């Protein structure tokens, strides 16, 4: 039996996600700037892409470790019955 975990009740998740959301928009960079180019992309595009990647990683971890609502054993028993 695993302990019940619900993402909404874990405030740390939401602090991390909100911070990432805030930094996924380039308000903190100088308006109109685009140089230097790195592999054809303006420097700030890499920053935004990086933040987006981090969000995906964080989400994958949350989905894997912070969400246990239904008892899997119970579920399996039910499936076997069916």
């Amino acid at each position: 039996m695993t302990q019940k975990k619900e993402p909404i009740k874990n405030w740390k998740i939401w602090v991390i996600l909100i911070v990432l959301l805030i930094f996924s928009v380039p308000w903190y960079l100088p308006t109109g700037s685009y140089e230097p180019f790195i592999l054809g992309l303006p420097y700030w595009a890499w920053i935004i892409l990086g933040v987006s990647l981090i969000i995906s990683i964080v989400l994958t971890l949350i989905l894997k470790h912070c969400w246990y609502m239904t008892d899997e054993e119970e579920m399996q028993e039910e499936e076997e019955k069916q």
Partner: protein
Amino acid sequence: MSDLAFSGTSGIIIMLFYGFLMLFIGFITYWRNRGLHQSNKEFYLGGGNLSVFVLFFTFFATQYSGNTVVGYAPTAYRMGFMWMQSITFFILIVVGYLMFAPRLYALSKKHQFITPSDYIDKRFKSKAVTLLASLLMLYGLCNYLLEQIIAIGHGVSGLTGGTIPYQAAVVFFVTVMIIYGWLGGMRSVAYTDTMQGIALLFGVAVLLIGSMIYFGGLPSATEYAATISPEKLGVPDSNGLVSWFSMLILVMIGAAIYPHAIQRIFAAKSEKSLKKSLSWMAWMPFVTSGFVFIIGIIGIQAFPGLSEGDSEQLVGMMANHIAMQNPFFYWAMVLLFGGIVAAIISTADSVLLTLSSVISKDIYARYINKSASDKKQILVGKLTGVVLVIILLLIAWYPPATLYRIFILKFELLIQIAPAFLLGLYWKQLHRHALFIGMLAGTIIASVMAFTGQQPLGIASGLWGLAVNFMLCVGLSIFLKVPKSEVELLQKEIS
């Protein structure tokens, strides 16, 4: 656009091929699941038994439509690097799911929910609230379906340079979609979604490779853009940033709360498969909207100086040029063309099925004929669905100019049911009257602002409506107070 490479037989061949493949999947599903027309759960949720792979593709196909290719590349072309937001907002949809899916999934298995209104009815026990929510969903879904139908026509006629007329494309594919939807319900929708999703992924990848080879890569495109329109490369100004934030929030909440998205939560086989599908979804934006974004940026160099209207044809023009290079790319572009059309249909079919379920269960069985059998409910849903599609077809005959505006319009209404989920699932004090007034006020504010074209501070009208909606829900609930006995009952049922 008279010298298109696949104006002619190959365009028609691939269209027929995809059409018949979808019908074939529909027939197989029907053959293997004879009993599915007897039960709402079987028909609308595939028996609540979708495994990781199929569930993932049906989430994918529901969220990513042909518009993600045909409409988003021109948007990147016009807006430049600001459109990188399309990668982030698709990732954030998974955050939207995290806000309510875990609890809603558990409840859906406990109480056998079929439609989002089943939850709303169980939670608020109010006819008025359930009806308002059902009507909002119905209207939003109709708009959404209309947009997809128009997109089918634009997609096919644009990509074949008008060889296949808009109307012929629309009628053919809508008929195919209705037939396989009738035959297999959620199962055939999910199975065709899998086929359609793979076709889209393949097509987009090849289009990206083709544009890099034949139009020069990203570095030359951005260097070129720096000389003719540097504003497309720079960090956006404050207006741009606000609209960027507003779009992120709107899609994050709006797309996850789509009725057809919610139904996919109910259709999951287990919590494990739901979690796994969602975590795959968190990575898809990089290879879908990300690739399409790059294609749009390359387009700045490939076809400079297009007007807004002309730029809507960008993907067709690029695919056409690439197809003329050699036989491999010719057939790859033909497949892409099929993939785009398939992606539109796969979004449209999910919407149509949810639309039918709302009519069957939430309108017909709840208010008109309470003793109707599941079989009869399904039949009513199917028939009304067809009638609605015919009405929408008539509207689609004379389509509005650009796709982007109507995309915003459906969000505005569907998003207003969000408090019922985001607050209702966790806060027992949310009063049904407060929710009703909140949803109604939010809808009116969002619609009026949308129709008059107002976006104060650059924030989308749907979000203004939603903000008022949330404030009314919280404010009035504190004032109205839910009786203690009811809170205790909810504690048992909803926790």
